[in-house]
């Protein structure tokens, strides 16, 4: 079976991470921003899995597994907060909720 080189995985993960960062920066909708963050987290997961495959070591996979678990909890919490914040508002633009500054 032809082995996919590690580099390709890493390049893909880096691209995913960057897409996630750019998504976070350019979007105003908090849920979309959360999705961008999930992309970044999963870029990390991909790198972990790739390295784990490369080293034939389980700990990278364990890490990735835990990241998935934590990501679920994090998504739930973030979603709850977003719902809490925007329940009484017309639209969901993160820049609209600034009462504190300076």
């Amino acid at each position: 079976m032809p082995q996919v080189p590690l580099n390709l995985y890493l390049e893909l993960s880096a691209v995913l991470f960057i897409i996630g960062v750019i998504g976070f920066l350019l979007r105003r909708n908090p849920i979309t921003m959360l999705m961008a963050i999930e992309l970044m987290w999963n870029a990390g997961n991909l790198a972990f899995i790739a390295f784990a495959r490369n080293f034939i070591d389980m700990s990278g996979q364990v890490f990735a597994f835990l990241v998935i678990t934590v990501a679920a909890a994090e998504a739930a919490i973030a979603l709850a907060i977003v719902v809490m914040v925007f329940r009484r508002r017309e639209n969901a633009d993160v820049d609209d909720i600034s009462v504190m500054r300076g």
Partner: protein
Amino acid sequence: MTIQGVNFDFGILGPISVLVITGLVVLLVDLVGRAVPRVVLYGIGVAGCAGAFIALAPLYGRSATTVNGAFATDRFSWGFSAVLIFTLAVTLLLSSLRNADDGNSPASYAALLIFCTIGGLIMAGATTLIGIFLGIEELSLALYVLAGTGYPRPASEEAALKYVLLGSLASGFLIYGSALLYGSAGSVSLSALSAAASSLPLLFVIGFGLLLVGLAFKLALSPFHLWTPDVYEGSPIAITAYMTVAVKAATFAVLARFVYTVFGHDSVALVPLWLLAIFSMLVGSFGALRQRNLKRLLAYSSIAQAGFMVVALSGVGEYGLSSLLFYLVAYALMNLGAFAVIAMLGDGDEAYADIDAYRALFYRRPWVAVALTLFLFSLAGIPGTAGFYGKVLLLEQGFAGGPWGIALALALIAGSIVSIYVYFQVVWAMFVPQEGEQPVTAGNSWLTWVPVAVGVAGVVALGVIPQVFVSIVSSSM
């Protein structure tokens, strides 16, 4: 690949186990009982803190690992764990005030605080990237929710949203950094990373850089500090108090462990950390100058304080960790004391967040004003207080830490000078004579007198007979 037996030492995991059980008991009590008063729930929490302390006490000076080396009790964990548990107890006390915000759900509030502290304890003891990540996330996830318990106060909602989005962003950097570090060493344990740290391959350096970004966010080191003033201002007072101390304690445990076990000596890879610290001291101190909200002022001050604490690590000296811990203990006492005063005066709510409310406080509540003055003096580093000796110890580390250490020490001095003005503004306001009508202060719960009294006693003791504590701290190493 065989799976080996997992060794499990409940002595080392004792404080965590006690707190886990406490958290579950709090939930169960609320589950079983009907309309349990929150004082009872928080009381269980405080009792759990006492139990965790008792479980922690035998670990003093011990150095051992468990869970196949993934969790340790050693010089990096003991003192930081003690500070975390103390902070939890104080926070629970402050939360039981009449007007305190707890989202009308005291059981989940208390349980979240306890689980949050468990996250901190895991961070303090974790010796692998996995443990560090899990600890940070457990700490953060709980705090995201707790920051929003001031709901429906708009500031609290805003704080929670800002915190969760930026925190997750930071976690993304942290995870990716961990992945690259794992890739550079082929293992998630910190001891395996030290080999890579000595040759500094690019993979390690970038990975550490990303991880540092994540940690710097938690520590509110500038320029990753922007969330801090908003989140600290918006969160309920007790949570703000908790965040200023507990997050710092846990994250500094991780950072110190990283610096000492992975690098072990002053490395060129630590230069960005020094830069962040210098930047934070200046941004934090100057940023506090014009604040009129005491919570926000203390938020800026905590940015500077985080920078101060980094000075202890400069040069990675033999006594850096002791100095860091001494300063952390001093900081916990004075900062929690100051927040306890704010909470006490408003009986738990935000009435005393504004500096103008402190005008002529001395003539209304002399003892409270004196206590707050003491805490602010200590934060400013006036001799005779804990903060002064803490800064002396930090400066010693800085001046012994090579050119970067000296730069850090000079930034510390500059930041301290600016911050003296900051804190004296508040002190000044408290002592100017009364003019016109002043708000009546109602809050005087004995619950807050406990942390205030402990804080006063501690600040004075650490300031007057610091050597006793220096020896306690340095023999926990």
